[in-house]
């Protein structure tokens, strides 16, 4: 006799998302949410993760999740955290922000700097795959040297 102890429908980041087969970012998100647990709100930057996980009318997120734009995940998370504090709902709730390396260090650096300086209780996760993956593997500022432009993205 077998007993199912962990089923796919208990995941906080579920199956059925449209990430590439073998995508490391999806594994990372799953693992972060395993630790963070269900009392978690995620602010997500524009990128592969957002595109692949929330194509309407489906969503792979089983926790509250918000996406606004590419460069502002840190600012959106700041607003969420401040509102929870004011409304007395912050206790026991994690506010996380997810972004790629572009959404963190290039276009997203300013918002991140502000969020860190203000000292919000937000945990910011960067998935560093060393390129702009969503648009087709272009160069970005964290690369140690110049790279060749990739082919056109989807």
């Amino acid at each position, binding site marked *: *006799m*077998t*007993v*199912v*102890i*962990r*089923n*796919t*429908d208990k*995941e906080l*980041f*579920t*199956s*059925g*998302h*449209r*990430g590439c*087969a*073998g*995508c*490391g*970012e*999806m*594994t990372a998100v*799953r*693992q972060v949410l395993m630790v963070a647990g269900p009392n978690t709100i995620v602010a997500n930057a524009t990128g592969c993760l957002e595109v692949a*996980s*929330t194509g*309407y*009318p*489906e*969503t*792979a*997120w*089983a*926790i509250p999740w918000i996406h606004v734009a590419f460069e502002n995940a840190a600012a959106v998370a700041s607003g969420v955290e401040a509102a929870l504090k004011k409304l007395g709902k912050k206790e026991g709730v994690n506010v996380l922000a997810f972004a790629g390396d572009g959404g963190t260090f290039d276009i997203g650096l300013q918002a991140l700097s502000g969020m860190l300086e203000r000292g919000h209780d937000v945990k910011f996760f960067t998935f560093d795959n060393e390129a702009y993956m969503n648009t087709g593997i272009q160069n970005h500022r964290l690369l140690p040297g110049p790279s060749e432009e990739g082919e056109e993205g989807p």
Partner: protein
Amino acid sequence: MVKIYLGAVNPHPGSALRYKTGTWRTMKPVVDEQKCIGCWFCYMYCPDSAIQMVKRTIKKEIGGQVKEIERDLAVINYDYCKGCGICAAECPVKAIEMVYEEK
């Protein structure tokens, strides 16, 4: 017809489950139940949450005696498995094999 919610909110958490990504696959992982030691590595690494862990009872010879012991087993959910092969690569006892499947 698409049901439209106010503010483009999607109030159905985890509704991606109705999108079966198993059709994306060209090779599928097959778990050798005899070899699987229930270590959960494949479960942790699967990008698609497509591995279920189940409990089972197996008979095993320990110190000359056959005993019934509990051991976890990885079961692939082929509805969602995209066939990326990470589970097979990460399995420490090579209990998962990637095989071509005819659709």
